[in-house]
């Protein structure tokens, strides 16, 4: 970990192995120690006291690099008919339990794989593997979100099958993962009944970025003051087109609708691949 700012670049692990640095730019992005010298630029001599200052127009999106990797991931998914979902929520909303129950309910009817994102430990990947599904853990170290580069490397290690489902469980965090496209077909936000109905208003970026909201732990509604209709109303104040499904991963209520949504997405991705199969799929080459 960086002792100056606490950031964790360089600590990212994928399946326990260090993340390969990006080959594309050949530039290490981490902060430099003070006094490490200027590595860049072509230093040319100036007459003392004379410097020429000028403006250069850049007009570049700050997230352009992540978006470039996300685009490559999306092309990879699309060429292989893979339906990829990015599951986002606060910690403790029940994402991993939901994934375990989803995999068990699909019962081998679809080839699938899981990428798990957490700051530390591989316990979530272990829980997924116990179902028999392949899972790879990304540990972000001090990082607060998955990015498209990490996912690109992880999915290559997973050897994804054509026409399969890829479930990406992001780091439990309702803020940071909203801005980082991973190349997924949809972000799915999970809000559990033990949280507040006002979460969509408090964390609007995430609810705006998601296409589907799962209201989880609905089996607990009789014991809570949580109003699921209000939660949906609040989410639609941010994102009028967000779809909502009430579920309970524990009791199984609402799971059929969620599974049908997944299966329909998988069929769509597979059909699109067959339609484009006349054009040879190009492999994603990465360093």
């Amino acid at each position, binding site marked *: 970990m960086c002792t100056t700012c606490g950031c964790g670049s360089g600590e990212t692990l994928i399946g326990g192995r260090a993340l390969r640095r990006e080959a594309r730019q050949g530039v290490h992005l981490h902060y430099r120690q003070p006094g490490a010298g200027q590595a860049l630029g072509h230093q040319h001599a100036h007459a003392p006291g004379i410097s020429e*200052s000028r403006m250069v127009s850049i007009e570049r999106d700050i997230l352009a690099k992540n978006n470039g990797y996300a685009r490559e991931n999306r092309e990879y998914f699309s060429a292989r008919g893979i339906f990829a979902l990015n599951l986002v929520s606060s910690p403790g909303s029940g994402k991993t339990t939901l994934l375990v129950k989803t995999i068990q309910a699909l019962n081998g009817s679809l080839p699938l794989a899981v990428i798990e994102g957490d700051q530390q430990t591989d316990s979530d990947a272990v829980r997924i593997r116990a179902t028999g599904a392949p899972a790879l853990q990304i540990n972000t170290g001090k990082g607060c979100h998955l990015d498209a580069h990490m996912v690109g490397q992880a999915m290559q290690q997973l050897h994804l099958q054509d026409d399969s489902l890829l479930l990406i469980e992001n780091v439990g965090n309702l803020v940071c993962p909203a801005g980082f496209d991973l190349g997924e077909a949809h972000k799915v936000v999970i809000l559990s009944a033990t949280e507040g109905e006002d979460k969509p208003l408090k964390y609007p970026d995430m609810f705006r970025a998601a296409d589907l909201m799962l209201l989880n732990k609905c089996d607990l509604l009789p014991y809570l003051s949580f109003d699921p209709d209000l939660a949906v109303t609040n989410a639609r104040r941010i994102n009028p087109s967000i779809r909502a499904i009430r579920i309970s991963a524990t009791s199984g209520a609402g799971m059929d609708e969620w599974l049908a949504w997944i299966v329909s997405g998988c069929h769509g991705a597979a059909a699109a691949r067959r339609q484009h199969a006349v054009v040879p799929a190009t492999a994603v080459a990465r360093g």
Partner: protein
Amino acid sequence: MHEMSLAESILQIVEDAARTENCTRVKAVRLEIGQLANVEQEALRFCFDVVVRGSIASDARLEIIDIPGQGWCLQCSRSVPLAALYEPCPVCGGHQIRVTQGEQMRVRELEIE
């Protein structure tokens, strides 16, 4: 703290441009940040100061141009100002608003020598 990732991305864009322009020093970095963008400006400034240490932009000023939020109200069929994603339409009070401006995070220009 995804602002650290954003600051690192900004530095990379700056360094790429500095290399292309053969400059020796970056004096200012000018960003456009939308009012509705998923970023906390003070945190971004803090992270920027940290990541540029020892780089060609080590003493660069960070200037942020605020871009106001704007949306298209589907009920009113008109463009309306939007200060936050959860705000209702100031005309009809509805929430059927499609954001049209204010989510950008861009490096607009650099002052170099």
